[in-house]
Structure formats: structure tokens, C-alpha cells
């Protein structure tokens, strides 16, 4: 692998594959928790909630 | 380039140490000084140009070879680019100024961010 005009003769992706997988799992889990927490009833219409507008629109739609 | 033999986990030091600070640092990390037993590596390899130092013994060819070698101190290469000039000015001279430069640069960036998000509100009210 060559980067910035230097060679790095060491395996990088293969030993780190478990950690890359773990990072994706953590990212997806946190994203899921975030999305579900932002649409919980007492806080879904809070002005500080970035998803408040969408939640309001969804409520009017249904 | 890093001086550590990565695949064998050995620390290899390949040249002499110039500054006194090195002594201070090398005590704590196992940077071993070159052993005297490996003094062989200091000696230059045998120069054998066929027919020059051989049995013929003609010194004319030898002096011709050495007369073509560059003489005097090596020509100074003008550093290129911002990084090259910065390196020649501050890093190669072991100046402590880069710490100040980095602190000032990051402090300036941080002040800009802080001014935009907090400090300009402090001027109007006590709390934000």
C-alpha cells in the first residue's frame, strides 16, 4: 500500500477486519437507538429535537 | 524512515547520535547504541574496479577515478515548497517554535469557532 509517497509494507485491512465490522455494528446500533429515541412521545415535539418537524408532519399525515 | 526493524521486533540504530538530548531519551527506551563488535559495518566496502587495483598496479587509472569524484562540501539544496522550507527553517534546526505555531494556529481556529457560537452572545448578556 502506498500513501503520501511512502510505502507501508504491512497488512492493514485483514488484521483490522474484526474492528471494522465492530465499528459498523456500533454505528448501526447507535443510529437505530437515536432514530427511535427521537420519536418517543414526550420529546418528539420538543423544539430542541432535530426531528421535531418531521414527527409533526408524520402525525398530521396519519 | 523509521529505524526499527519492524518484522523482527528489534531496535536497530544505524548512525551516530548527534545531540545530548538523545542520551536523556534513550535511557528510558531501549534504543541500544551500536555495539563495538559491529565496527565492521563502519568500514567502507572493498572497492574493486577490475584492472584498476589489480595486479597491473597502474596508479594512473586509480587517480583518474578519484579525480572525477566531487570535491569540497556537498552543494546545499534549496528547500522546495512550504513543507520543505518549514522543515529547513524550524524542524532541522530543532527549534521549539513549531509548538508555539501549532498552539497559536489551533487557538485562533478555536477562538473563531468560540466567537461565532458563544462569545458574541456573552457581550450582549451575562449568560447564554
Amino acid at each position: 500500500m502506498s500513501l503520501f509517497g511512502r510505502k507501508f509494507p504491512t497488512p492493514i485491512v485483514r488484521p483490522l477486519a474484526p474492528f471494522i465490522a465492530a465499528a459498523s455494528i456500533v454505528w448501526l446500533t447507535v443510529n437505530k437507538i437515536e432514530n427511535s429515541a427521537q420519536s418517543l412521545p414526550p420529546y418528539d415535539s420538543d423544539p430542541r429535537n432535530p426531528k421535531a418537524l418531521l414527527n409533526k408532519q408524520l402525525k398530521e399525515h396519519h | 524512515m523509521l529505524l526499527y526493524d519492524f518484522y523482527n521486533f528489534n531496535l536497530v540504530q544505524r548512525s551516530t547520535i548527534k545531540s545530548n538530548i538523545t542520551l536523556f531519551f534513550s535511557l528510558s527506551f531501549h534504543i541500544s547504541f551500536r555495539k563495538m563488535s559491529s565496527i565492521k559495518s563502519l568500514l567502507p566496502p572493498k572497492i574493486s574496479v577490475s584492472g584498476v587495483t589489480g595486479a597491473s598496479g597502474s596508479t594512473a587509472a586509480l587517480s583518474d577515478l578519484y579525480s572525477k569524484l566531487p570535491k569540497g562540501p556537498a552543494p546545499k539544496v534549496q528547500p522546495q515548497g512550504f513543507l520543505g522550507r518549514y522543515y529547513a527553517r524550524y524542524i532541522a534546526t530543532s527549534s521549539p517554535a513549531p509548538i508555539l505555531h501549532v498552539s497559536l494556529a489551533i487557538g485562533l481556529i478555536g477562538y473563531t469557532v468560540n466567537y461565532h457560537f458563544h462569545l458574541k452572545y456573552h457581550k450582549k448578556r451575562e449568560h447564554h
Partner: protein
Amino acid sequence: MTKIIHIYNPLEQFEIVKFIALEGPLFGYIQIGLTNIGFYLLLASLFIILLHLLYNKEGVLGLSNTLMLCMESLFGFVLQLVKNQVGPSGQPYFPAIYSLFLFILLLNLVGLIPYSFCATAHFAFTLGLSSTIVLGVTILGLKLHGFHFFSLFVPAGTPLALVPLLTLIEAVSYVARSVSLGIRLAANMLAGHILLHLFSTFSWKFITGSFLGLLLAPLPLLFITLLYGLEIGVAFIQAFVFVLLTCSYIQDAIKLHSD
């Protein structure tokens, strides 16, 4: 006579703000934005790359300047750490551990510059990092040893009656690693920054408050300077401890029962 002193909130320095925000009802609801945490992470990464570009630009051998000396020392330090903790089988993980060490160290040090922002004082960042590491180590152990990996939860020489209880305790302590690793780093940095902010605010009020305060000004300034030195030490120690524990977790996963 009471005198009211107004100070700014010492927690205000930790506020997360969005520089660029990209939000919209796309794929559910995506929120992509550059917050100040992300900005300082990018800054630290750029700084690491710059350090390694400036490091030995001439291509000379040996320790010819202070930057080279510092980089070699850090490299040798982490190399010795990996060598002692993980052993030869941990060799492929050395680049990652070295990068992790430099990254956390630089984030800690960048956070100490006045008006700057400390990303490692945020539990959201450090817990994400530590849970990624512990989960990655678990996946690594499962990949290397399969089902046998769970023997990590049963210490050698346990009586059969105690096995269920000990397995439960070991499993809880294994999961708690992911929390403790992140909380240790963030709590140390958070406490240090709050302390520095409080003391500098009170010293400023003390010095500007009265003429006696102005005369005694060197005392609080000396104290802040000493505290700053302590915080620089804490920055190094916390980066070291984080990397040390990462090494020992990797070692646990690579060779089960290494005692």
C-alpha cells in the same frame, strides 16, 4: 456585604455545535453533519499526517533533530508496549495501536490549548471508541477460537458448583470493559478541563477584583501553571492507559488463558 460574581458556565466549553448540517427525510431520516467533535477529529488526523510528513523530510539516517527524536521515542515506546503486552502474535495490530495512541494523545493535547475543544472529554466519542474496540476484540476471539472463546468466562480450576455464578460475573465484567475503558478517558479529561476553567475564571476575578489581588497575582498564576503541567501529564497517561488496556484485551482474545 455580599458581592455577586458572575462567571460563565464551565461546561459551556463542551457544548457540541453543528458547523455543517445535512438533514432530511431521506432513507428514513438522515442527519449528516460536521460537529465540532468531527472537526477536531479531522484536525488531529491532519496534524498526525503533517507530523509524519515533516518527520525526516531530508531522508537522513539517525536522530538528527528533536522532532525525529520525539517520533522515534513514541514509536519505540508503543512498540515495547505491544511487544510486552501482546507478544509476537500481536505484531499485525501494531500499526493500529500506534495510530490509536497518537490520535488520543493529540486529541488530549489539542484540547488543552486555550479556546480549543477537547473531543476526548465527550462520552459519546470515547464510549463509541471503546465499545468498538471491545466488540472488535470479541469478534476477533470468536474468529480465532470459535465456541472455545467462551472458556474465557470460566477461570481455570473452578469447582463445578461455582461455574454458573462465575460465568455470570465474568461475563458482566467482560461487558463492563467497554464502558469502563471509555469512561476512564472521558472522565479524566472532563474533570481536568472543568478544574482548569474554574480556577482560571476565579483567578481572573481575584486579580481584577482588588489591588491586593493584583499584588498577589503570581500565586494563582503559578498554581494554574502547575495544574496545566499536571493536565499535560494526564493527557499522556490516559492515552497510555487506553492503549495498554486495548493491548491486554487483544492479548486476551488471541491467547485465551495466558496466565
